[in-house]
């Protein structure tokens, strides 16, 4: 970036700071300014044009430090650009593309620059979502499957395990070579550091870039965070790589945008949010999807997060983002209180495009599971009456509890697709009959670990899944292989 005097002499337009209102600065002059243009101040700070009026310009500052009245400002004739290249991988960067972790900053001398504010791609560049996006969480992969290029909303109350689920998903996808852009919007520095350390500890940070703005940053910086993240995601998509972008969280982003809009005296709408709050999020989420490129179909899968209050799914921002996404995964605080991990309510969760990416076998499992769990849920209400239970009902309840135990996963344990299916089939065919739920769980955890480390076992499991033509076929094969599979737990 050039100096203030260089821009001043080049564009020959000047402005003077008249008023400072938190992160907004009213500047008189600058007659040629346009929306989102970068304005440079004499003191070195930069901001973006937020509002234009006949004799002044409202600038959204990116820095926390205040400006003095009378400070000179000049135009740059460009909107915000950030350097983008592969050197970002493994680092934590701020929304201006500057490294903020303790590592040596990467060299961006030869990197290309991209505009942060861009229009989403046209319809003719979009491709049908056909590949599945593995999260490593059995409940999601089997009942609420995701596809690459899908936009899924992760919604729930605070402290219900949403961030945990996202970290697991990033771990799974990064392990498969997908580039992950993990975005924290206005979070605590401690949470950002934990996420960074988590990725380093599990050896996936070479495929992950963290775009972070913390709660101490200015509202302007927090506002542009998700746009920077999607710009970086688009760069990697254009190099032919699949990308997963996580936006944690959009309700916080909406709150900061509301603050900025109210300070700039824009007319408040519902819940005091500005009228364009829908557009602010829609133009962001529409930049992800599955695209046709000269390198084949490449996707940007977007997992956006929205926080609810006491499980209320009908909130303004929550319903806005639900309508922009291809489904939502609901984290239920009641299930969390009961000890379920992850606390996902499969009956209130939706996936609109994930099922078309599943194989025939997985689709049949999905169907079978959904109808069984619905029956199980009804049965649980029935037993409250205290009537005597028949053997069938007892079997259903026992199987249901085993399935819930199967879906419970320890924090940061990732379960690959094939072992999920085989373990479920063993369970479904009463492979763990006579054992307690805890015993079953610990054997399952052990077998998952063996799958990841023992090539022979992995080949056996993968072979079972790839040769199965239907769910019943897989159950029969799994039944026959159960002694061999469970034999590994005794070794």
């Amino acid at each position, binding site marked *: 970036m050039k100096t203030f005097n260089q821009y*001043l*002499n080049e564009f*020959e*337009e*000047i*402005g003077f700071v008249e008023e400072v209102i938190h992160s907004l600065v009213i500047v*008189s*002059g*600058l*007659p*040629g300014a346009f929306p989102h243009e970068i304005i440079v101040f004499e003191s070195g700070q930069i901001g973006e044009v937020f509002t234009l009026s006949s004799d002044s310009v409202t600038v959204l500052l990116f820095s926390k430090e205040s400006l003095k009245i009378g400070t000179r400002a*000049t135009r740059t004739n460009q909107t915000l650009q950030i350097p983008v290249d592969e050197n970002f991988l493994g680092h934590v960067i701020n929304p201006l593309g500057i490294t903020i972790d303790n590592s040596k900053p990467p060299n961006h001398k030869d990197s290309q620059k991209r505009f942060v504010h861009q229009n989403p791609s046209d319809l003719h560049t979009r491709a049908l979502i056909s590949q599945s996006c593995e999260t490593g969480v059995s409940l999601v992969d089997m009942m609420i499957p995701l596809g690459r290029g899908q936009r899924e909303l992760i919604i729930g109350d605070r402290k219900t395990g949403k961030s945990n689920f996202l970290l697991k998903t990033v771990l799974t996808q990064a392990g498969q070579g997908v580039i992950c852009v993990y975005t924290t919007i206005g979070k605590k520095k401690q949470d950002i550091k934990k996420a960074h350390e988590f990725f380093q500890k599990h050896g996936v940070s070479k495929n992950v870039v963290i775009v972070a703005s913390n709660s101490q940053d200015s509202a302007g910086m927090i506002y542009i965070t998700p746009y920077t993240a999607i710009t970086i995601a688009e760069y990697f998509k254009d190099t032919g790589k699949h990308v997963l972008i996580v936006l944690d969280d959009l309700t916080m982003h909406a709150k900061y945008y509301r603050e900025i809009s109210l300070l700039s005296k824009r007319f408040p709408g519902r819940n005091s949010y500005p009228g364009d709050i829908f557009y602010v999020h829609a133009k962001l989420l529409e930049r992800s999807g599955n695209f046709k490129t000269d390198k084949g179909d490449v996707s940007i899968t977007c997992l956006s997060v929205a926080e609810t209050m006491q499980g209320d799914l009908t909130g303004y921002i929550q319903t806005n983002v639900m309508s922009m996404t291809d489904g939502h995964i609901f984290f239920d605080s009641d299930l969390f209180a009961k000890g379920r991990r992850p606390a996902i309510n499969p009956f209130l969760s939706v996936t609109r495009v994930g099922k078309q990416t599943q194989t025939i076998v997985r689709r049949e499992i999905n169907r079978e599971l959904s109808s069984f769990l619905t029956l199980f849920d009804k049965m649980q209400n029935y037993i409250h009456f205290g009537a005597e239970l028949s053997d069938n009902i007892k079997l259903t309840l026992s199987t249901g509890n085993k399935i819930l135990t199967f879906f419970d996963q320890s924090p940061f344990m990732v379960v690959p697709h094939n072992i999920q299916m085989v373990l479920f089939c063993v369970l479904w065919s009463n492979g763990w009959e006579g054992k307690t739920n805890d015993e079953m769980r610990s054997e399952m955890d052990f077998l998952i670990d063996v799958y990841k480390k023992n090539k022979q076992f992995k080949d056996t499991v993968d072979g079972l899944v790839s040769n199965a033509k239907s769910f019943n076929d897989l159950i029969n094969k799994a039944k026959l292989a159960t002694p061999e599979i469970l034999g590994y737990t005794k070794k």
Partner: protein
Amino acid sequence: MKFLPILKLIKTTDDVSRINDELEILLASLYRVKNGFETTLKKSVSMELANVIKDLAGQTNKDLRGQMRGLLVDIQKYLLSLPVVKLTLAFSPSQEFVEKIVSYIRENMNSSAVIELAKDSSILGGAIISASGKYKDISLKKALEKTFEGKREIISKLT
């Protein structure tokens, strides 16, 4: 047009500031019994301003304090609305020079402009002008920098 006599008294933003201060003194004296408005107009403000206000007040019923107050506030608003041309020179200009510049600006740019003068000897000569958000550096310093930039190689060979 109504406040044209006021404009004739003002050339620079210092003049605007001085007249504004005198208007504040008059506003404060409006509702005083001792040293009231008439006394203040005679003794505490400049003669030129006092004459202009008497002329303007001639069109107003000066016995009605509310109307007089309205007139003074209107003059203050008028002063604030005057467009400002900022001029940075390498020297402190004389009053005659300032009047020449102001009359040139009022004839060719804006008929009600006032100038804000600043001195910066580092520009060596010429001026830096900014008005209505536009900025122009026509100083000697910039001209020399441009010349040296273009002839960098020749100059480096000489040294």
